[in-house]
């Protein structure tokens, strides 16, 4: 049973006479409890795909199904509600509100959804525990390390118990140690809590933790893989190199 499915998803920029395709007829499906990594060279459309899946942007044509709902036909308020309740985002720049504490940041989607503040904070604390950050709950973002900030951002994505988490280069702005920390937390949400997760990255070491890797180039899927073995990262690097070199 899929959680999220795209159907001929197309995003076109530029003029009618000289269109530039960021995505072209992308068909892809994510199963419940699956950890999918999207990889590809820069400009391949991997981030665009993620934004469209999360309803941050609207496609030129095609559909995105979140369970049984087509989010591409929703109006702005309905879409906001979907993002609030069913989708959790993790960004490269952690995007925490600087004037709120970690726990308040995590509680933000719940509060926006109308959960009373005490309950929202309680659930936020639980989410922080999930990412091993319970002891930093009352710190402001500026008092946290990069890895801690990103974990807080993951907790924020988890807080509303979304159907799916979409992460855009979540380690792109971190050193390798913090990066490992963050990936470990993400992996654990899938293993321990059955969270569904789609992650865009260019780092093979990060992608190596995924159940399935989708390679995108020029707006479409060029390869798909379920890798096994200890040298997965190495295999991915190789594959990525081949994808980049290939024509079309």
């Amino acid at each position: 049973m899929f959680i999220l499915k795209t159907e001929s998803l197309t995003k076109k920029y530029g003029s009618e006479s000289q269109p530039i395709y960021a995505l072209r007829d992308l068909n892809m499906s994510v199963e419940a409890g699956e950890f999918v990594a999207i990889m590809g060279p820069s400009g391949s459309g991997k981030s665009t795909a993620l934004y469209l899946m999360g309803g941050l942007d609207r496609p030129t044509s095609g559909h995105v199904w979140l369970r049984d709902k087509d989010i591409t036909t929703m109006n702005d308020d309905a879409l906001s509600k979907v993002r609030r309740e069913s989708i959790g985002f993790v960004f490269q720049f952690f995007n925490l509100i600087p004037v709120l504490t970690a726990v308040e940041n995590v509680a933000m989607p719940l509060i926006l959804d109308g959960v009373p503040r005490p309950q929202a904070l309680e659930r936020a604390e639980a989410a922080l525990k999930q990412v091993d950050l319970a002891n930093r709950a009352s710190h402001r973002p500026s008092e946290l390390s990069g890895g801690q900030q990103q974990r807080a951002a993951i907790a924020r994505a988890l807080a509303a118990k979304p159907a799916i988490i979409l992460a855009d280069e979540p380690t792109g702005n971190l050193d390798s140690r913090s990066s490992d920390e963050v990936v470990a937390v993400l992996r654990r949400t899938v293993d321990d809590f059955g969270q569904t997760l789609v992650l865009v990255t260019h780092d093979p070491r990060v992608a190596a933790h995924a159940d399935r890797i989708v390679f995108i180039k020029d707006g479409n899927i060029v390869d798909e893989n379920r890798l096994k073995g200890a040298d997965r990262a190495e295999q991915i690097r190789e594959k990525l190199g081949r994808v980049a070199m290939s024509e079309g």
Partner: protein
Amino acid sequence: MNNLGQMTLMALRYLNGRRLRTALTTLAIVFGVALIFAINITLPGAIAAFTQSLSSLTGADMTITNVTGASFAPESALPLVQDVEGVAAVTGVLRRSFTLPAIGSELGSATSIEMIGIEPETMQQVRQFTISDGRFLQPDDRGAVVVPAGIAEIAPQIEIGSTFPLISAAGLRTYTVVGFSAEQGSLSQPTLYLNLPDVQAAFGQPGQINTIEIALSPGADAAAVSEAVLAALGDTYIVDGGAAGNEAFAAVQASLLVLNLMGVLALFLGAFLIFNTFRTIVIERRRDLGMLRAIGATRGQITTMILVESLLQGVIGTLIGLLLGYLMASAMIYGLAGVYRSYFSGVSLGITMSAGAVISAVALGLLTALLAGYFPARAAGRISPLDALRPPTPVSVNRATRSSLIVGIVLMVLAIVMLLAGGQTAVGGAVVFLVGMVAAAPGLIMPLARLFSPLLTLWFAREGDLARSNLQRQPGRAAITASTLMIGLAVLILMAAMVLALGQLVNTLADRNFASDVFITPPSISVYNNVLGADASLEDRLRALPEIETVASLRYASSGLDGTRLEVLGIDPATYPQVASLEFSAGSEVESFAALGEGRTAIVTGLAASTLNLEMGDEISLQTANGAQTYRIVGIGEDILTFKLATLFISQANMAADFNKTEDVLLMANFSPGVEDAAGLAAVQTVMADYPQFTVHLTGQYRQTLVDTTSAAFVIFYGLAGLILLPAALGLLNTLTINILERTREIGVIRAVGGSQRQVQRIVTAEALLLGIFGAALGVLAGVAMSYGFIGAFSALGWEVPYIFPVAGIIAAIVVGVLIALFAGILPARSAARLDIIRALQYE
């Protein structure tokens, strides 16, 4: 929405994070609210006090006066009132408040008194008097007076049996204290009770009263009695009237309106500031807001969040504004007490808290904040969630400056057409021009920057170019700041032009109108309500002097026409033209004065003609003490004393018949041929010693004094311009500070690549200067248009005022604009120069 608490919390934290900016923006609200609040807790109180001092508050159930405030014969009214059902007792009273001469008062610090003439027997049926010492008045007492017990505080020498002199219409009179009343009353205006004939003699109004006091039968319905009384007396009388017919009252009300307008203008500039700040805030937090959208905040929620923040500033600003307003009011009362007393004697200025004053100040403060925050908030709601995902890049605002430039220019062209049309349309033209300037400002920034560029490069070299490009990056914000300054400077130029024009008008009138040798004036000129003048005795005695050839006088009454108040001046058409003249815009000196001697005729001032739409030959139905009378207009003209009032000149014979007034409030006299000024003056002064309520001037000297005082009064115009310029300066300071906060990282880079502190400081100063020059350039244009429009409107009021190009005002505006800019730049320039390089580079 149940997450308002969270929004408030976030807003508070954001505001707290940028304290300086919050403070500067909040100040904008503080200032406007303070001004409005200060005005509304002082002036309405003064008006109320005034009303109270005029109306009978002394304990009668009901009072009746003539609709014009004139006196009348008791026989004509008292019996009619007596017969009304529900009336238990009536008594006739002659009462008046008047200003005491500045020197030689036996009543200590009292600047005015109220003198009430009563019939002791009937009066005691109407209300109770408590005598704390001595006795009450007896019917056959003459020269006896009952004073308030509180008078001991200001004149401790007064006791039972003391005597003191007081001014009267027929010279000084002496009174003996027979009792102290327990009534406290106002010490700045003590109430004296005398027998009716004494007061009638003192006012030169034998056999007259001006108030009927009534005691109602137990259980009588006041409204019904009032109706029945009016039915019996006719519509020349009113019940419980008072302030309605008072010129000073009207003046206070007018100033209340004008000052409130200034407060609203200050708030308007405050709104500009808030708008400016919040636009910056929205740009700064683009990524935060985009992220909130990404995690599911709706557009409405984002808009609400920003609105909550601006509202919070509104709340804080309003609270501080109320406090500051209270302090301002106290300072104002302290500072103005002296001036005030001389104009509105008998009214002590104080602070009167009223729900209305608080509510209006609070509502205006909050509304301003909400309105100013609304547009940035709406823009915030439109931020796309994708903004959260873009790496932080400096955002440049490129607004549709071209379309607003076109709108602005179209408006300005329209405004010029309206200005040339003159009259009331010109005022509209002035306002439209200002709006057009504001609209065009963003589009004008670029060309103006280019225009002034060589100058700036000359002075500031490379730093000047940097400063200019900084401004050009944010033409919208630069335009708003320059517009704020523009409005301030335009008002300054407008004031300068008005002072010039009015000064010219006063000079012209003064030169032409004063034909007499001697001028005998009451304590206040043009406002005769509180004046106790003189009866015929004074004029007779003056005329008897061999040194005097001609004497002419002015008498005063108040009236109304179709609900508009009119001042009525009585002159003798035979003698008046020999000592004074009017500027005629219709009719002529010879014909109009001649016509004034025949039947019911009047000369009206230009202001009266324009407000009432009157022309030569029109017949008007004038309200008089004895009902409406038809007067024919035989001329339109005014002099320096009447040009600012809606005034009617009628003959003294008509005034005596229709207004029961024979009291002279101002006199003018010519010396006999060959009499030297000094000798003539000395002779007049021997007579005037008995009438200390008047001051004698040689007309030449008086003219100069009048011109001087008028110019001094004009200073108030400049004060008002200053009040408007203050928020403009704040706006400039605000914009510069925000610019620097926003460019912290950039300044860090400039410093990192080797820019010196001095260079950074010069960049900011150059930016401030450039803004100042923009503001001044726009302000000069707007100021010229506004002054042209407003002065054009004077002619619609019936004043022939020439438009004098306000060169001095323009120079002053440019200097003030540049100075304000340099001054506002000092702090931001210094703080920019002192930024810590490393921290500046990390600033987000």
